[in-house]
């Protein structure tokens, strides 16, 4: 084997150092959460009803799944179809496209507490939805919309134009080209964006507490209040009376995130294979 030049060696060492540093931090965080949390996981944590004794996380877990589901239903079609319009239909570089892009970029940079306040005032007060699943899901879906639009746009743009030419060249129209050629090729990227969005929803507290509320029960209907796991943790950590349950909840939250990621990449692979 050829001897490496010093510069090569330094770069090599730096690369490894960064990998080790990243991995260490990750392992420390995950390890800390699991070691402190797992021993405290007990069946009562999953009781259907929250009581001061059991500190059940089940209602919050359900609340999380409901918020995630509902806001994805709202934001994914809107975000994906807007991105399709911008990339495949709108004139490239037109003023309209520029304005929409600027708006989404601005939206993406706004702190979530601002979304929370907006959601509270607009959905909660103005539309009279109060602290509810609806207010929460609408607010969060506005929050993740730019993320979904951007990632979808990027993955559509990364589909080579030669695919589109091939399709048009054989007499397929634009709709068919987009549906049959472009979108299937862009699906992995679109799904990656959705996974990121799920992560953001699960981790959100500020916007959620202002709109869904932070009541320890499962929403009974769309206009009922509730809480998510992150908001639940926030409450537990704030009260400080149940440190064991708080750690256990953190561990469950972490496991839920890992499960959702695994599930999504499994789905991505299935879609790609078919």
């Amino acid at each position, binding site marked *: 084997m050829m001897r490496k030049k010093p510069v090569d060696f330094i770069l090599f060492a730096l690369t490894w150092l960064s990998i080790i540093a990243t991995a260490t931090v990750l392992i420390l965080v995950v390890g800390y959460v699991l070691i402190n949390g797992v021993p405290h996981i007990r069946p009562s944590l999953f009781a259907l009803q929250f009581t001061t004794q059991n500190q059940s996380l089940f209602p919050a877990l359900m609340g999380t799944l409901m918020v995630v589901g509902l806001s994805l239903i709202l934001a994914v079609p809107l975000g994906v179809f807007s991105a399709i319009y911008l990339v495949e239909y709108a004139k490239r570089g037109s003023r309209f496209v520029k304005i929409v892009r600027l708006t989404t970029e601005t939206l993406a940079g706004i702190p979530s507490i601002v979304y929370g306040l907006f959601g509270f005032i607009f959905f909660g007060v103005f539309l009279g939805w109060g602290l509810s699943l609806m207010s929460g899901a609408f607010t969060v879906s506005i929050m993740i919309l730019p993320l979904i639009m951007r990632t979808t746009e990027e993955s559509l743009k990364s589909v080579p134009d030669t695919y589109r030419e091939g399709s048009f060249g054989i007499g*397929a129209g634009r709709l068919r080209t987009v549906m*049959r050629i472009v979108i299937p090729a862009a699906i992995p990227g679109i799904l990656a964006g959705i996974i990121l969005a799920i992560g953001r929803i699960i981790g959100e507290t500020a916007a959620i507490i202002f709109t869904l509320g932070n009541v320890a029960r499962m929403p009974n209907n769309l206009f009922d209040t509730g809480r998510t796991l992150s908001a639940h943790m926030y409450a537990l950590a704030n009260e400080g009376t149940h440190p064991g349950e708080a750690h256990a909840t953190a561990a469950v939250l972490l496991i839920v995130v890992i499960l959702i990621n695994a599930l999504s990449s499994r789905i991505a692979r299935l879609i790609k294979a078919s």
Partner: protein
Amino acid sequence: MAKTNKFSLKNVDLWYNNFQALKNINMNIPSNEITAFIGPSGCGKSTLIKSMNRMNDLVEGCKITGSIMLDDESIHGHIDVNALRKRVGMVFQKPNPFPMSIFDNIAYGPRTHGIKSKFKLNDIVEKSLRDAAIWDELKDRLKKSALSLSGGQQQRLCIARALSVQPDVLLMDEPTSALDPISTAKIEELVINLKKDYTIVIVTHNMQQAVRISDNTGFFLLGEMIEYGDTQQIFSAPSDKRTEDYITGRFG
């Protein structure tokens, strides 16, 4: 034998925004012959071939005037652009199979034009691959991804894909420039065989290729058609000095 013309172009001018890429092109392209376009890079060969199935419609700021007739019917008139592209197929410089199976690549065209029967599709796929001289190589792996094929196989697959919708004309824009000599030879042989059923227009940078396979050759320079005629004639006794300079390699 009287030649019939597949395409007939009159006073064709084409602009990309303010840049005039084609200047007053007049030419007839005979049926069931191979017509080659040659000329230095940027002279408008691709632009011209792409205007024959209106792929230029997709380019923003592209404007075309004059008339292009296909079988005595204007391609800018009543004809639907998708129907036009079904009749006038295209093979591109870089092989561009879709990221799907070999079978689905070929079936995409017929499915687009409304054929659903599995039985018919099987037939079409086999016939197209046979016509593109690649059936024997691929018949056992139709379910495999088209992206797993070699460049030369991909290009023949793309030719099969173009044939799958039974076009009249095949437009080929430097179909062999990304391929090795053996794949190139296979495609040249294939193109010559296709001549009896199709009218073929081919852009090439390879002068020997034009001589080997084409019946007519057009030489282009800076958007103008300098000379057009019988291939033997053009290469043995060009009437324009610029054509001679180009084919003898004293140019660009």
